């Protein structure tokens, strides 16, 4: 083979190699082309930070989110919404703060065609659903430990009647373990809400009422967080509150939904509690939880 012929052969081989490389690259790129997943999110309660969380994850994971708000307090409306989303072909469904008992009964009777991710303080286990749990037992323990920093050991738990049974059970146990005595009072029973006491509000709306009723003559702690409490937390009218990051709950829920669509097994995520007070509310990590960017 002469020189010219050798050069021509090398050139042809190089060209063939280039073509082959281009072919394989295009095949590879095509296989990685992003899929878009249809995820329905059923909101059974308000949750601005939760929405910021799942929207943030949706952008990262190419999820197309369909949000359904269920304002009907009847828990049957929640499972009706779930059935409708499944029937409409959702790739996965996230349920936020659905009634746990009703949902558990529904799961026991139904085979679900798409992955479910349940988010709340109580999440029924079983039947292959993923759970993102806002761990109230851990919150109650953390709050009891925070309350132990002040000298009074008698506490009044104030219940607004808004379905706070899991929080009440967790608080009773945590307070007893920490050496507190407690009594339970309804938020409407003003005669028993006296100054000079340590109160634990079972939800943010009760905390707001307590501050109106008892002003500055009491120590008020709170289970749960709402943006409406920021001013009171800053001024110290609320001594401390315990909660879990709703933003993280939304983020993990969406990430888990997409992972389940991809075939991964159901996971259970328990969100760690945080304690917020006037001293730490503007410092990370508490500030990023109370004021998430999203």
């Amino acid at each position, binding site marked *: 083979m002469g020189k010219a012929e050798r050069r021509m052969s090398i050139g042809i081989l190089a060209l063939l190699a280039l073509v082959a490389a281009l072919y394989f690259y295009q095949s590879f790129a095509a296989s990685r082309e992003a899929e878009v997943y249809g995820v329905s999110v059923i909101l059974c309660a308000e949750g601005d930070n939760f929405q910021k969380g799942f929207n943030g994850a949706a952008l990262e994971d190419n999820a197309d989110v369909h949000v359904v708000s269920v304002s009907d307090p009847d828990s049957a409306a929640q499972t009706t919404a779930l059935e409708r989303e499944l029937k409409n072909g959702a790739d996965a469904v996230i349920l936020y703060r659905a009634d746990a008992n009703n949902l558990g009964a529904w799961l026991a009777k139904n085979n679900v065609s798409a992955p479910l991710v349940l988010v709340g303080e109580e999440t029924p286990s079983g039947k292959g659903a993923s759970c993102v749990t806002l761990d109230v037992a851990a919150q109650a323990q953390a709050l009891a430990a925070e309350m132990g920093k002040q000298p009074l050991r008698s506490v009044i738990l104030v219940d607004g009647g808004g379905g706070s049974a899991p929080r009440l059970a967790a608080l009773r146990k945590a307070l007893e373990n920490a050496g507190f005595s407690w009594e339970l009072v309804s938020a409407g029973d003003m005669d028993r809400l*006296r100054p000079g006491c*340590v109160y634990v509000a079972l939800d943010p709306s009760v905390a707001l009422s307590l501050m109106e009723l008892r002003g500055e003559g009491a120590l008020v702690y709170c289970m749960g967080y709402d943006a409406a409490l920021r001013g009171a937390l800053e001024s110290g009218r609320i001594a401390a509150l315990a909660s879990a990051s709703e933003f993280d709950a939304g983020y993990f829920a969406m990430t888990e939904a997409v992972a389940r669509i991809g075939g991964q097994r159901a996971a259970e995520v328990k969100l760690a509690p945080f304690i917020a007070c006037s001293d730490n509310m503007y410092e990370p990590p508490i500030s990023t939880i109370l004021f998430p960017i999203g």
Partner: protein
Amino acid sequence: SRGRSFIPVRDELEHTRNYLTIQQMRYKDKFTYSIDAPEETLDLAVIKLVVQPIVENAIYHSMDFMDGEGEICVTVRVEEGDLYISVADNGIGMPKELVDRLLVEHFPISKGSGVGLKNVNERIKLYAGDAYGVIIESELDVGTTITLRLPATPYTGEEAK
């Protein structure tokens, strides 16, 4: 003291002590307090929630002027068949014109409390008669002593009305 109108002095002082503890924390130890009650007074009957508003009055009217040297003293004594509960502070005192108005006009002590001295005075008189009630002594730049005068009646648990 659930739902009862009368409680033992012991319980009323316990509530007051808890309240003072909380306020000490809130005001970062700007004041100290003492509660002096002989044993024989602790089981006498007192109208619920009459001492704490007096203490609250002392704190809110004097706190801005206390710099760690504020003192609130609660003392209990029995004299000639009557129960006296006094709350004394070393705050700035009050002018006579204000003292004269306190038991006549409604001055809510702080927002959220809603119980003024007039209310306390009226409750005592309603229960015990016009000879009893709230006595205010105050001197500008010296301090204020507010005394509750009630009949010295043993608490039997049957006074709830």
